[in-house]
């Protein structure tokens, strides 16, 4: 059994009773075990944190180095050239779209924002952003279309119109909202 003792303490922190307990042998052994386990856990945790800190530091240095590389004039020039190339490709595609669907239809697409076409007795509407709709009981419903990311929008519209003309059954399902 552990014995408790009450001591009156008066100091700068205040006036209070402190209770002290004499530990039994069993409690001492238990406490030894608990402290040993706690020390082991803390040491392991410190090691883990050190490994994590080391890894994070390496990642930080790596990210700083990569960012440094991406801010060089060489990369800036590359981006400029690529953007110019993309712009040229877009203009070329726009011109081809105009030739492909004809000046009148092209102007209609620009001014109205959409084109209408009929395939297999179904009316379709294609807007200038490349969205495709089918008229179903007086209402246009948006269809699911998978757009290849590499195609400039005008090229995509050419491809979509051609696919719609040649394989209208491709577009069966409504797009999810």
């Amino acid at each position, binding site marked *: 059994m552990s014995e408790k003792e009450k001591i009156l303490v008066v100091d700068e922190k205040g006036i209070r009773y402190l209770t002290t307990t004499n530990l039994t042998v069993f409690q001492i052994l238990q406490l030894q075990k608990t402290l040993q386990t706690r020390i082991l856990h803390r040491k392991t945790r410190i090691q883990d944190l050190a490994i994590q800190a080391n890894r994070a530091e390496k990642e930080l240095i790596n990210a700083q180095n990569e960012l440094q590389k991406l801010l060089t004039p060489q990369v800036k020039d590359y981006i400029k050239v690529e953007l110019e*190339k993309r712009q*040229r*490709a877009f203009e*070329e*595609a726009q011109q*081809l779209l105009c030739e*492909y669907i004809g000046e009148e239809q092209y102007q209609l697409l620009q001014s109205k924002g959409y084109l209408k076409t009929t395939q297999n007795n179904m009316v379709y509407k294609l807007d200038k952003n490349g969205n495709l709709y089918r008229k179903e009981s007086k209402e246009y419903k948006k*269809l*699911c*279309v*998978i*757009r*290849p990311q*590499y*195609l*400039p929008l005008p*090229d*995509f519209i*050419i*491809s*979509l119109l*051609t*696919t719609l003309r*040649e*394989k209208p059954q*491709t*577009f*069966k*399902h409504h*797009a999810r909202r």
Partner: protein
Amino acid sequence: MVKIRKLSEKGHEEFDVSKEEAIEMFQAEQGRYFVVDSKTKKLVSEVNIEDDQELMMVPIIRGG
């Protein structure tokens, strides 16, 4: 010679190839591209390809 304009990830690629090479190209991309006559905008089959014809390879779009 056959002139081919291919709408690809590299932009508009242009090729001047023989009839046989054109057929090989179309066969290699079968199922991925339509072959369209640049002037008539109509689909062209391999058997109908003629010399000096201008063709376009238009990607086939998939639906959901």
